[in-house]
C-alpha cells in the first residue's frame, strides 16, 4: 500500500544535513592516523542516512580511538576504560529509539573490556560497534595489546611480545547469538564506507573490526598488506558486500561467501596470509535483548518516581512503629 497523503506531505519537508553538521572540533589524532578515515566514513554515513544528531549517540571507552565522540556533533559518552559497551547497552535499553554506536580500541575492547565484549555479543542489542584495531595501546604510548603480533617490541615487551595475537574475528564468531561480523581496513575508504553502512543497517549487535594504522607507534606494521593488493581478500556476496568495478580493478583477490555460512566464516576469519575485507557473518533472525525485554509501558515521570520509591523503600529502615503507620 502506498503512503497516505499526510505522510507524503510531512516527508516532503524533511531536512537534509551536511557533513559539517556532524563535525565537531579538530581531531587531535596524529596525522596519518587511521582513526581519521573511520571518522570520515562514519560522518558520511550519518549524512547519507540522515541520522538526526539529537537522536544519535556515540559511546566510547578510553584510548586514542575512544576520543571519537568528541569529534561528532551528536550525543556522546566518553566513558571509562573498557566499559563502553555496558554504557551503550544502558542507553539502548532506556532509549531504544536512539541510534547507538560504540567506538573502542583493541586494548579497550579485547583486554580490559573483554568480558563486556563477549556478553554484548550474546545480548545482541541493536548497536553498531567499531573496533579500531591498531594492535597497540596508542594513547599510553606503545604498550603491547592482545592483538599485537607475536614479537612486537613495545614499552612493556622490549624483547618482543611473547604470545600469539588474539584474533577478534574468530573470538566474536565463537559467541552464542552473534549476528553480524565484518572486517574493514582504513586504507580502502570505499569499502570501509560500504561495510560501516551495512553494519548500521543490520538489526542486532554489528561487530566491525577495522584494521587501523598507527603511524606513530607501528609505522611499518601494515606495509606488506598495503603494498600488495593481492593480500587484501574481498569477501563478497549478493546479499552482503558487492564490489564496484573500480575496486575490482585494483583488488583482484575475491572470494564469494554466503554470510549465513558460519563454518566458512570462521575459516575465512582465520586466514593469516591475507586480510579478508567484507561481511563474514550476518544473521538477521537473532532476537535483540531490548526487544525480548521490552516492557512497552510508557516511562512517565510518575512511573519512574513510583519505581524509584519502591526500590528505595526496600532499603528504608523505619523507626519502630512507623512501619505500621506507613502501611495504614
Amino acid at each position: 500500500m502506498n503512503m497516505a497523503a499526510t505522510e507524503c506531505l510531512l516527508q516532503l519537508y524533511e531536512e537534509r544535513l551536511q557533513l559539517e553538521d556532524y563535525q565537531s572540533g579538530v581531531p587531535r589524532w596524529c596525522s596519518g592516523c587511521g582513526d581519521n578515515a573511520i571518522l570520515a566514513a562514519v560522518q558520511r554515513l550519518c549524512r547519507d542516512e540522515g541520522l538526526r544528531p539529537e537522536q544519535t549517540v556515540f559511546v566510547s571507552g578510553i584510548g586514542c580511538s575512544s576520543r571519537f565522540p568528541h569529534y561528532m556533533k551528536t550525543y556522546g559518552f566518553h566513558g571509562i576504560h573498557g566499559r563502553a559497551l555496558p554504557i551503550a547497552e544502558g542507553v539502548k535499553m532506556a532509549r531504544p529509539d536512539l541510534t547507538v554506536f560504540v567506538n573502542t580500541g583493541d586494548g579497550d575492547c579485547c583486554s580490559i573490556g573483554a568480558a563486556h565484549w563477549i556478553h554484548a555479543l550474546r545480548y545482541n542489542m541493536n548497536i553498531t560497534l567499531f573496533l579500531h584495531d591498531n594492535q597497540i595501546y596508542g594513547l599510553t604510548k606503545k604498550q603491547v595489546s592482545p592483538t599485537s603480533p607475536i614479537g612486537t617490541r613495545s614499552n612493556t615487551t622490549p624483547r618482543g611480545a611473547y604470545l600469539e595475537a588474539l584474533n577478534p574475528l574468530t573470538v566474536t564468531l565463537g559467541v552464542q547469538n552473534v549476528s553480524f561480523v565484518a572486517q574493514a581496513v582504513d586504507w580502502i575508504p570505499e569499502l570501509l564506507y560500504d561495510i560501516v553502512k551495512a553494519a548500521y543497517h543490520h538489526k542486532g549487535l554489528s561487530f566491525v573490526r577495522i584494521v587501523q594504522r598507527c603511524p606513530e607507534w607501528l609505522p611499518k606494521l601494515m606495509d606488506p598488506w598495503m603494498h600488495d593488493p593481492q593480500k587484501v581478500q574481498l569477501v563478497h556476496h549478493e546479499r552482503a558486500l558487492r564490489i564496484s568495478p573500480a575496486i575490482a580493478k585494483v583488488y583482484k583477490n575475491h572470494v564469494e561467501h554466503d554470510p549465513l555460512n558460519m563454518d566458512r566464516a570462521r575459516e575465512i576469519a582465520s586466514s593469516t596470509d591475507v586480510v579478508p575485507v567484507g561481511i563474514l557473518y550476518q544473521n538477521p533472525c537473532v532476537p535483540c535483548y531490548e526487544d525480548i525485554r521490552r516492557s512497552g509501558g510508557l516511562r512517565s515521570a510518575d512511573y519512574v518516581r513510583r519505581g524509584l520509591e519502591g526500590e528505595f523503600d526496600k532499603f528504608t529502615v523505619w523507626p519502630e512503629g512507623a512501619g505500621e503507620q506507613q502501611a495504614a
Partner: protein
Amino acid sequence: MESDLQTHVTFYLTGKRHGGQLGPIDGMALRPALLAGYRDLTRLRYDYPVVLCAQDGDGASVRPLSGLVDAALGQAGGGQDGERVRRHVLHLEEDIRKLLAEGAEGTLSALWDKAAGAQAGQGLGRVRAAIKADGELADCDRRLPARLVGHAWNAVQQRKSRRFAEDITRLIHKLNDILVADFVRSDAGKSVDVLKSGIGTSHQDSFDFDAMSRILRDSVHEVALPASRRRRVTQLLSVLESQRFCARTDLPAGDEADEPYAFAFGSCDAALRAYRERLPKAIELLKAISMAELEIRSEYHEAKHDPIFEGFGEIGFDPRDLSRFPDYLVCANASRMRGVENDRLAEIFSGGLPMKVLVQTDDLLEESPLGKGHLAIGLRAKQLASMAIGLSRVFVLQCPSSHLVQWSGHLTQGLLYSGPALFSVFSGAPEKAGTLPAYLNAAAALEARVFPAYVYDPSAGSDWAARFHLGENPQAERDWPMREFAYEDSNHQRMAESLEFTLVDFIVCDPRFADHFARVPPAHWNGSLVPVAEALAHEPVGLPTQVPCLTMVDESNALQKVIVDENLIREARTCRDMWYSLRELGGIRNSHAERLLAREKQAWERVRKQESAAPAVVAAPVAEARPEPPVESEPERSPDEAYIETARCSTCNECTTLNPKMFKYDANMQAYIADIDAGTYAQLVEAAENCQVSVIHPGKPRNPKEPGLEELQKRAEAFL
C-alpha cells in the same frame, strides 16, 4: 410405459400432476439422498458449535468445540482409563450440542458444568482442565453470522484501539514533558518553594534554599519556550485529551474522559451519519497527532509546517489516513438492503471508508418481483458482491455460515484490511423455515453452487490471479460436486451410485417449492427418468424423451424418485452458468487461458512436424546476455598533471596538514588538489611520499625556476 413417459413429460412441461400416478411431495419430509446421513446433527461432530474465545493469545478467536475437545483429549485423555474417559467426554460433548439445540445459552464452562451435572470423575476433570479457552458457545443459527463477525471485529478493534490509545497517551506525556521542562528552567521553577518541595521534608534543614535558588537563577540563563510554541503545545494537548475515538487506559479511576464513541451499527445509514458527524473531529485529531509527533521530535518548524497544517483536510481527505483509527462495523440484513440502505452502502464502498459491512442473507430462494414462476435466487447478495468487487478497493468475502469457521482467517484478513470490506454470509436460516437445519442448509447452498465461497482481496496483488480465490468450493472443476451414495436394495444387496448435488437438490428441501416436484411410485420407475445433472448437461431439442429426476430418501430412509418441472431446470442452468463465470474469474477453466493454450499447442505441433521433416540442426547454445556493469570512468590523466585519486584517499590529514591551501577535503572528507599554485613542487612531492595510500600524483613541475628540481623530479618518478 408410453403413458408413463407422457405423464412425466406433461408434468415436466406444465408442472401439473395429471392422472393418479404422480404424487405430491409435501408432508413427506423427503431429502436428497446425499443428505440422508445428516438427520440428527447433534450426534455428529463438526465445526459447530464454536466457542467465541474471550481472550486468546495465538489469535484464533473462534474455535470449534470438537477441536477444543480433541486437543484436550490428546493432552489429558491418556492413562489407563483413557478409552473410558474419551467416550465419556464425547458423550458430554454431544449433550452440550443437544442443550444448545434446545435453546440453551452460555459460556463453554457454564454449559459444560450443566451437561456434566452430578457426573464427575477424575478423567473428566482432567480433560476439562486441559481446555484453556472459554467464551460464549454459539451454534449455527440465524444469529451466528453477526455474532461471529462481531466477535472477530471486536478482537481486532480492541487490539487496534489499545495501540491507538497508547500512541495518544505517549504523545500526551511527551508534550507535557515539554511544558514541565520549560517550567523547571523558568524562574518560577527555581523558586525556593519549588526547590524545597523537590527535596522532601526529612532533610530540608541541610539546605539553604534561598542560596540555591539565587545561584540557579543567576548562573544558568535559559531561553523560555516561545509563546507560539507554548500555545501550540497546549492546544495539541487539549485536542488529544478530549478525543473520543478510543478509551485511554492510563487514566486513574474517577478521572474519566468523555465516553468513547461506539463503532458498531445496525445499518449503513446510521454508520455513515456517525462517520460524517465525527469527521471534523477525526481530522482535528489526525492533525494533532501529526503535529505532536513533529513537536516532540523538535522538528516542528513554523515556517514550513504552519501552512501545511492550516489547510489540513480542507480540500478533501484520504480515508487511508484514518487507518490507525478504529473501524466501523455494520451488521445488516440483505432483506433490508433496498432504497436508502443500498445507496448508503454504495457510498461507503465507493468512498473507501473504513467500514466493515456484514450483509447477512437468510433466504436465497425469495420469489422474484416478477411474480409466480420467477425466482430471484440469491439476487441481492450477488448484486452487492459484484458492486463491491467492481469498485476494486473493497475486500469481499462471501461464504455460507457453515464454512465461516474454516474461513475465519479470511475474515480476519478482511478486518485487518485498510479499507472497506464486505462480508456476505448466508445464514442458512430463512424466516419461513425449511426442513433442514441452518448448518446443513448453508452447506447445501455451497455444495449446490447457489452461494459459492470466495475472497477478493485487493491488498494481495494487482491482478485477479492474486486477488481472487475460490478456495473452499467442493470439486470446483466440475459443474456440480459428485459424491458416492451407498444403499441397500430390496434384496439387501449393497449398491453404490454416484450422485451430483445440483441447485434442484437444494430447492427441493424448501417446502415452498413442493409444487415443482412430483413423486414417482417405484412401479413407474423406468429408463426415461434421468438424473438432473445429466439432463442439465444436454440441452434437449424438440419434444423431451427423458425427464429429470432426483434420488431422495424419506423419513424411514426408503429410496424415492422425484421428478422436477422445467422451471427449476431453467433456474439450475442459470445458476450453473453463473458458476462458470465465477470460476473463470478464479482461474479455473478460464476460457481466455484455454484458447491461448490451444493456440500455443497448435503452433507447437506445427513446429514439431516441420522439425521431424527437416534434418536436425544443432542449435548453438545462446550465451546468456549479461551486460557488464558500466565501469565508472576515471578521467584519463596525463602523467604530467598533478592530481589525487580522491575516492581512494583515507582522510589521514597528512597532505592537508602539510599545505592546507593546496590540499583540501571535499564533501566526503577526501582530499583533492584545491589550488596547485598555493604551494611548491617540493611540497607536492613530499605529500606524495607521505601519503600512505599513495594516491597523490605530483606530475611535472610548473615553475622551472624552483630550486632542486632535478632531484625532486627523480623522487616524483615513483608516483607518476
